């Protein structure tokens, strides 16, 4: 099925001419010739295109990205600061001028400009947006990535189904779904996975494992049932199997063409986005990639410009790559942070926390592209935005775009039934 391409007038012909491979890939997917594309990992992900079961890539902008310096600029107003706006591939919609590449490709996306949460604290705000619920001392909530891994299991996947790339102070968690839905964290993406290489060579490692298995066997004598319940040996053997899996190649970008690596950017975040695409191709269900540095209480404009240089390239390359490989219809991409930043500029030329009308981007999967939901006051006076979207609504939207029933109730360990998301999908944002 053809993926939606931006109108060709907006796509610099120089880029198209310079990347014949991209044109070929795009042409192949447009003609339904996906089988000409590089084969996906044998068992994990059998298909491409619409029929493939869906994955989630979350680009987490940690610190609270300013909506005014990203997807909801208000140039020429008292609150706009020096940020300018540029036209995008969605008619009538402008985003901050620091994102030219994203602007060209915005037709793949929908924007929500009216997210509201009641949490202005980093940890609580992160929890709220990641899980769709306010933090609860008695019941830890699972992140959307964990929910996706739980609801859409992948057969034949050695790698953990939920992976988090980059360094993050408040990573998503499996919550009440259990520790096995905690993400597998890789702090410096692009080289390899995390903690996969034994300290010693094969023969010595084998000797160590033999000794270990002997110890565990002896320990189980007279304690068979409780020791079995620990799953200690089961987990150990699974870890050993993972260390030998061919699917681990997805964590390394060494065999990617230099042009592709350059497009994503030689930054940890850029490499992380490329690894995310590879992981999704291998069948991983959810990948979080974190970019830190948005908490600009001082020097907001220079700070955000620096972040934009990284994010613009990586996000654009990711969307191009997914589209070229016919993966965009089966991959939901969410670009969000824990809250936005104040319309008012503080004396340090910064902006402070603002959970009363902030933005996020959604693309892929069942997301209907080209929509803009909500609006914030250009004068920065009104506190509530037009058409507010709660974090629960955002969760429901993402789950619906993944093809998951957000109203499904699970029985939690404290005996309280809980829906996967409280809220409803934003009208018009999810197909079907």
């Amino acid at each position, binding site marked *: 099925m053809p993926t939606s391409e931006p109108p060709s007038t907006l796509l610099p012909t120089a880029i198209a001419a310079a990347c014949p491979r991209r044109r070929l890939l795009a042409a192949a997917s447009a003609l339904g010739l996906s089988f000409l594309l590089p084969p996906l990992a044998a068992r994990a992900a059998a298909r491409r295109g619409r029929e493939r079961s869906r994955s989630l890539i979350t680009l987490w902008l940690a610190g609270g990205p300013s909506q005014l310096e990203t997807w909801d600029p208000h140039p020429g107003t008292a609150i706009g600061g020096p940020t300018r706006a540029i036209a995008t591939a969605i008619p009538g919609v402008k985003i901050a001028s620091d994102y030219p590449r994203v602007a060209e490709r915005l037709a793949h996306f929908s924007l929500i400009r009216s997210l509201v949460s009641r949490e202005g604290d980093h940890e609580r705000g992160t929890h709220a947006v990641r899980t769709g619920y306010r933090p609860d001392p008695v019941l830890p909530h699972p992140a959307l990535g964990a929910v996706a891994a739980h609801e859409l299991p992948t057969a034949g996947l050695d790698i953990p189904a939920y992976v988090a790339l980059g360094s993050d102070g408040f990573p998503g968690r499996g919550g009440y779904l259990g520790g096995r839905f905690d993400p597998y964290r890789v702090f410096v993406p692009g080289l390899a996975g995390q903690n996969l290489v034994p300290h010693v060579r094969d023969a010595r490692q084998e000797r160590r494992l033999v000794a270990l298995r002997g110890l565990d066997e002896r320990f189980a004598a007279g*304690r068979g049932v409780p020791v079995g319940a620990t799953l200690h040996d089961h987990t150990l053997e699974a870890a050993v199997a993972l*260390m030998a899996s061919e699917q681990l190649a997805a964590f390394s970008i060494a065999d990617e063409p230099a042009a592709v690596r350059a497009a994503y950017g030689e930054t940890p975040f850029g490499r992380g986005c490329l690894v995310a695409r590879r992981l999704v191709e291998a069948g991983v269900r959810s990948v979080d990639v974190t970019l830190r540095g948005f908490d600009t209480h001082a020097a907001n404009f220079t700070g955000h410009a620096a972040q934009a240089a990284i994010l613009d390239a990586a996000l654009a390359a990711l969307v191009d790559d997914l589209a070229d490989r016919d993966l965009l219809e089966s991959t939901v991409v969410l670009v969000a942070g824990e809250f936005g930043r104040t319309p008012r500029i503080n004396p340090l030329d910064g902006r402070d926390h603002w959970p009363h009308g902030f933005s996020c981007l959604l693309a892929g999967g069942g997301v209907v592209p080209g929509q803009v939901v909500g609006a914030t006051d250009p004068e920065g006076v009104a506190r509530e935005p037009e058409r507010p979207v709660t974090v629960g609504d955002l969760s429901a939207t993402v789950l619906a775009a993944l093809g998951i029933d957000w109203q499904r109730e699970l029985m939690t360990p*404290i005996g309280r039934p809980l829906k996967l998301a409280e809220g409803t999908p934003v009208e018009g944002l999810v197909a079907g």
Partner: protein
Amino acid sequence: MQPAIRRILPGLGIVAVAFAVIGAVAAAARSTLPASPPGAEPPGRGVRELASQLDAVLAKRAAAAGIEPAAAADDLAVLRRTWLAVAGTIPSLEEIRRFEADPRPDRLDRWLAAILANRRSAEHLAGVLADAFAGTDGGPPFVYRRDRFTSWLADALHAGRPFTEIVSEMVAGDGLWTSEPAVNFVTQAASGGRVDENALAGRVARSFLGVRLDCAQCHDHPFAPWTQGQFEGLAACFAAVRLSPLGVRDSGPAVLRIEPAMAAAGMMPETDAEAAEQMPAMAARRVPPQVPFDEASFTGSGSPRKRLAAWITHGGNRRFERAVANRCWAIAFGRPWHDPIDDLPDPGPAPSADDPLDLLGRSFRAGNGDLRETIAAICSTAAFRRASTHPDLDDTARAAAVTQAWAAFPLTQLPPGTMIAAMIQAGSVRTIDPDSHLLVRTVQFLRSVDFTREYGGGDPNEPATIPQALVRMNGRLARELCEANAFSGPGRVAGLARSNEARLDALFLACLTRRPDATERESLLPVLAAGEPARGVEDLYWSLFNSAEFCWNH
């Protein structure tokens, strides 16, 4: 000076510095534990009597279920459990040597008393209680100082202050979170100059009353008799709290104003009276401070928080002492007497001699309210000193009955912090305690931080995950600790022991607090004999660190 000598001098200087550093590092882990446990009086008669009463209750339960209790565990196994419970780490090789050299028949009792009196146990217990009472979230910056809170708790526990006093300070304390650290219990829930009264109500109920009221925040509790009104009354006790640069004070009005979401959305009926008629819980309302039961004891003058603290801790509040007892049981055994730890069954009309929570609770009230005495009593029971093996534990049909009757010591997973401490202690031979050289403790802290970051929090009720197994097997901390060099445990074991048999013994004692049995000697001595002893020692350290026996308390 000759040019040649001038060239050499800086080199000598570097060598001198290097030796100084090596000397400092070598001295770093020196222990100050004297030859026999200091002040090692065994626990008093009261503790032993209480332990017997507890054992009698458990014996009845086991008999009723037709279960034979497990045999008594080895003294070393009990020592290991005691250390894990009370000090959050395992005994060091040198502590084990001294223990084995102690000829007294009641050496277990004496060593229990000694470790409880040691500052290490106060610090570990303070960490456990701080996690329970103030949660494990980061909390708001600046106004919540977890480090101060934990060290204040450690001081209070170490000084043997009554737990009722400690709780009162946490609930009702005023002042700055740095100089009056008890107030961090309240500031953990700070939000914009005030506190989240609902979070505190839930926390007070779970931590000090053993009751989960949280469901009642939004509606009458679905399966317990708590009403929303009762929850709101408790929350209202914190309504007056204000945070300022001077600290925590009750300077606001002592009433909780509730404006339900419907009001905010502009959907309120015209008058409050109309709302109250249609949906009582939906009306905007003001709630005065109140307690969810035994209202008659919620008296006296003073701020609502002071009255609340007095109500929580007063002698007639059996839920308080039962909650304390349940927590102490969990500290000792790794599992609470009643699970979940903070949601206990209602107390009966009178304390029952068949309920360990009542037995422990009443004793706690009768004594000085020193938590360590309660823990000492539990650790003195025959139940605590039983083996974790039992013939019925190999039988799927019967195993659950053994566990429920506490007929064998339960298997519980070491929390990540304890596992790290145990790995570091096992890897260093000498005891690491507050008197250890600062360098050693700094290194320990930094390694722990990295390991914890990768390992994650970990719910001890859940088995470890694959990523956690990977950290343990292939992570940096494991590699460093297993490495045999001049200063590490593996290096010393390899270098100082005189034979492979001695090395194997030392390895097992350092990691598992026991000696290898005959089968293990047979299969593992060849590992040591295969090449350099140092390599074999490294390999076995690795295997032991990753074994179920190391990672689970038993």
